[in-house]
């Protein structure tokens, strides 16, 4: 392996273990019943990304997001239909789908707790919270990390805002997500992202600052 190569070495056992895990998930839980490992606190199984994610970077954090949870499929089918979601998580979705699609706020809260859609972003903020005030809307508030804010204030705020919005819109069938950023007890960022604005957009080529402005962002 040459110096500077990004690949990490992996022994054969580890490789086989991972392949087995992938295969098990691909069969959608139809493999022989084995004792499933306990649900990790992080959201790895809950919302699989379209491709294997590398450690996110604030410069590109908005370019990836969680896969949308298909609530209507979860309502109609007792077993995973996407070949990506694990059986236990799907069973949880299936159980809650009716309530979620009725806009039940208690069900929303339970899903947010279990799916933990913003788990991956915790290292980029001192604290992140989320709540469901209405069936159409989710709200999230994050306390900024000083060093990130100092490096590139606008990009940091907009990147966080967009990524939070994408993850929450993927998690629940709401129309909009309001994101607020705070620093030293003061509000430094606020924007409301609607589903319509984010639909069919290629986020690789999206400028998060511009989009935040379109979504009514105020950078203080």
């Amino acid at each position, binding site marked *: 392996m040459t110096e500077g190569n990004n690949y990490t070495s992996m022994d054969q056992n580890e490789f086989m273990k991972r392949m087995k895990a992938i295969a098990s998930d691909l069969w959608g839980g139809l*493999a022989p019943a084995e004792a499933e490992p306990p649900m990790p606190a992080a959201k790895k199984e809950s919302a699989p990304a379209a491709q294997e994610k590398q450690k996110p970077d604030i410069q590109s954090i908005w370019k990836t997001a969680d896969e*949308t*949870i298909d609530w*209507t499929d979860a*309502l*109609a089918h007792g077993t995973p239909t996407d070949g990506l979601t694990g059986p236990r998580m799907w069973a949880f979705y299936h159980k809650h789908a009716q309530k979620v699609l*009725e*806009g039940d706020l208690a069900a929303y809260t339970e899903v947010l707790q279990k799916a933990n859609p913003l788990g991956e972003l915790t290292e980029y903020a001192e604290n992140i919270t989320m709540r469901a005030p209405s069936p159409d809307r989710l709200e999230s508030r994050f306390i900024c990390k000083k060093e990130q804010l100092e490096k590139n204030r606008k990009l940091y705020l907009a990147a966080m805002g967009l990524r939070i919005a994408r993850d929450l819109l993927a998690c629940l069938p709401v129309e909009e997500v309001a994101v607020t950023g705070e620093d030293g007890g003061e509000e430094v960022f606020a924007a409301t992202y609607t589903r319509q604005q984010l639909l069919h957009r290629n986020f690789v080529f999206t400028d998060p600052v511009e989009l935040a402005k379109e979504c009514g962002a105020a950078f203080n």
Partner: protein
Amino acid sequence: MNEKTEELIPRWHRELELFSGIKPLLILEGNVLDQYRYPLHGSVAQDEIIPLSRYLQTYFSDNGYDQVIFYSNLVGFMSPYDPSMLERFAAMTGTEIKDGAIQAEFKGNGAGTAPNVIRRAMFQRKAAAVTVMEMASHYITTPERMDQQDVNSFNILMQSSLSASWVRTTQGKKQNLLILLVNKLNDLPAWFYLNNPVCKILRLEAPDREERKRMMTGNNFAAFFSGTVYRRDLPYYTEHPDELERIKERFVGLTEGMTFTELDEMRLLCKKEEIPIRDLCTVVDLYKYGIKENPWSRLNMQSLKTAKQDFEKRIKGQDTALERTLDVVKRAVTGMNGVNSSSTGKPKGVLFFAGPTGTGKTETAKALAEKLFGDESNCIRFDMSEYGQSHSDQKLMGAPPGYVGYEAGGQLTNAVKKNPFCILLFDEIEKAHSTILDKFLQILEDGRMTDGQGNTVYFSETIIIFTSNLGIYVKDAFGNREPNVTMDMPYPEVQTRVRSAIEDYFKLELGRPEILNRIGENIVVFDYIRREAAELILKSQVDKIISRLREQKNIRIRIEDFAYSSLQEAAVFDLSNGGRGIGNQVESLLINPLSRWLFDNEISENANIVIEGFNTAANPPSVICRREEEAGK
């Protein structure tokens, strides 16, 4: 309740239930690559849409079979839904699992070949086993050219089924089963299934209306929409269930003939595009043609109200024919087309234009295309005299794989693929070969056609117009051609005689009354161009020439009254060639002599010309003209 459930079980499933208890060899033929709705309560949810393999696995394991094993000649024996079954199968047949499958070739008669493994499974009495041979159409190249090893393989399978054992299970006695999934029955050697007393062939069809309706019920319907759309729209439709029912009914009608896979793909498209419940049916257009807004729905009712007047500017003397044509269009626009039929996938309208030559049949089709789609190039014309050979259907629909021209596709199917919103004009339909008429039957009935490349082409947004000169001449007792109608007959008599001759042609001469039935009451008989209409046609053509010369060359032409009368007399003297004949006369009596006179007098632009007379008797005819000085000069 039980009765209702019975109705929703497809026929092939009922046959499967019935015959899997008595026949050890089942061949499932037809739509085997499709997905299916599981109709029962069991280890998958009722009404879930699942692949056929999972369907069979669920059905048989829920009914007491210990092992449901799938075989493919590429992978071997496997059990993707329950690997423990494969372990038991391997132990029972003395085989070994490697990389998740029991590898076994189809060919030959060695102990490890698939047929011999199946034989062991069929003979044993320890556990009830079902072996499903997937992709069985592809085990051999062709049934006609099998080598001895292929023959042996099928022979072993046949013997296995002839002596299949019965096994005691918790749900009663079960016979070990062998199931083959094939696209077409003739992919298998005929001796394998013909006169085989233990074999039953089940035909898998695309979902019928009830099946499609079922897909629209309960939670299956929810799965058509994104969570956001469904959550937002559902409260309204809970309050207005009738409206929801109408949307579902329409969708079910529009998806006639589609497979479950196609329906499922539309479901995904609907979800991806966040289509609201009220616009559900637009997904059908989106799926078929890649567009959301159908040009038919954009049609301006107001412009259609004046359509007759607009048409009369182009087509003279055909009041009744234009009225009948517009009736069909109005029916299409108001969505009344097909209301008396279960299929809404049929073409928007079908018209059969009959009548003497040069009476405006083709012109009406072009005018209609312009009115409906804004451009007469949306009228796609096929001269059916070019399709008189028995193989002409391939020219129209595309040659099958392996034949010359296969890559090119068919002329008709390509045209409709390129522009699904059009008028298809089949000129002189009586000259087409009868095999083509069979294809038309399918288009008129189902509104779809699969071309040689396997692509489905939809005709549901087209208007189909056939034109014909049938009924103008008939053959007498000696086989001589004689006129059936003449210009001195009144229009009602012309209409009756032509219609009657067309009916005789399809019923008696062609022996195909079903074609006539598909055309229904849409035979439109065009009248002869009579004197009054002829004069209007002449005037319109002369005016067009004069205005074009003025616009392009600034040459102003005035025809003296007396001269115009002599032109008119000559032009409308013989109306046997209809409007086209008048056009020929205008060219011969006006255009050619006038251009000769302009050339001889070196006039190429900016002039005022008065035509004082026509010498129609001269050879070639000539004009008497003079040049007027322009005002102010």
